[in-house]
């Protein structure tokens, strides 16, 4: 919205709008995939019917790995959305800069939430590379949101 409203005053506005659309198309299926992957993992966790315990544990671990992959991508995309919103808060049309800053804050919240899901819900331990990546994204998003708020004034 900020990019669309800044077309006359900001040469890169359309390009920022196109990137925002691409990020939206990227994140939408991830949200659904996240829910499905988590439900699969839960179903495996609650499966109590017979079979080899070791095999069931292996299967559960694989499901949790799959489930961890999605929030990592959500965190990455949240970081990108926050970075793009920061750009809009800095260069966009004055009247809409506050909206861009709010978008950056919301994107950062999404990235932080996804990083939290990786750590808590999926049983990933400290030192895990996937957790480190999700945290880097969440931190980058938070930094971008702080700069966006500064830029919007």
């Amino acid at each position, binding site marked *: 919205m900020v990019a669309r409203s800044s077309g006359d005053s900001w*040469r*890169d506005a*359309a*390009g*920022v709008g*196109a*990137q925002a659309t*691409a990020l939206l198309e*990227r994140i939408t299926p991830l949200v659904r995939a996240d829910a499905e992957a988590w439900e699969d993992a839960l179903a495996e966790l609650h499966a109590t019917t017979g079979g080899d315990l070791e095999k069931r544990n292996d299967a559960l671990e694989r499901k949790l790995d799959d489930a961890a992959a999605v929030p990592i991508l959500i965190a*990455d*995309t949240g*970081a*990108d959305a926050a*970075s*793009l919103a920061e*750009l809009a808060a800095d260069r966009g049309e004055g009247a809409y800069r506050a909206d861009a800053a709010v978008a950056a804050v919301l994107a950062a919240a999404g990235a932080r939430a996804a990083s939290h899901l990786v750590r808590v819900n999926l049983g990933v331990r400290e030192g895990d590379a996937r957790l480190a990546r999700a945290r*880097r*994204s969440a931190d*980058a998003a938070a930094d971008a949101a702080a700069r966006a708020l500064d830029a919007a004034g």
Partner: protein
Amino acid sequence: MREVTETLSDSQLVQRCRAGDPEAWNELVERFSRYVYAICVQGFRLREQDAEDVFQEVFTRVYSRLDTLRDDSAVRPWIAQLTRRLCLDTLASSARVQPAEEVLAPSTEQTLDEIDEAFAVREAVTTLSESCQEVLDRFFARDESYRTISAGLDLPAGTIASRISRCLVQLRERLEGRNEGSTPSSE
């Protein structure tokens, strides 16, 4: 040799084909094969065998009728028109009921427009600088994050979104330039 022909404009390529340059013919088929196939399969949803038959027939006709093309720069829409006609003929002969024109549903028209647009964008992207092609491909085609792009190209992460925007501005200028003209002019 291929490196030379692949940098030619459509118009230059047609001229080389007319002059009987076999390398130019190879390039022409290479350049438009995915386009023709996309129209057959995505636009008209032809079966694989039918799509291959149409594909063969399109390039046979292009080869035998290139002299009838009045505007060399309009070779793409001309090939599109040939392909569409042959797809309609194929559909009509398999349905054996309706006249060919009635087979074309509105959704097919929309898909064909989207295919045209996608190939026009793809073609315009190839006219951009290597760095723009790389950054646009990584973000829009490979879905890479800004951080991944930044690491891959050794660029500051905070500049990636701006770079992409500037490249998109250039792309739009190329597309606007391209759209001045280019309509089918034969048959």
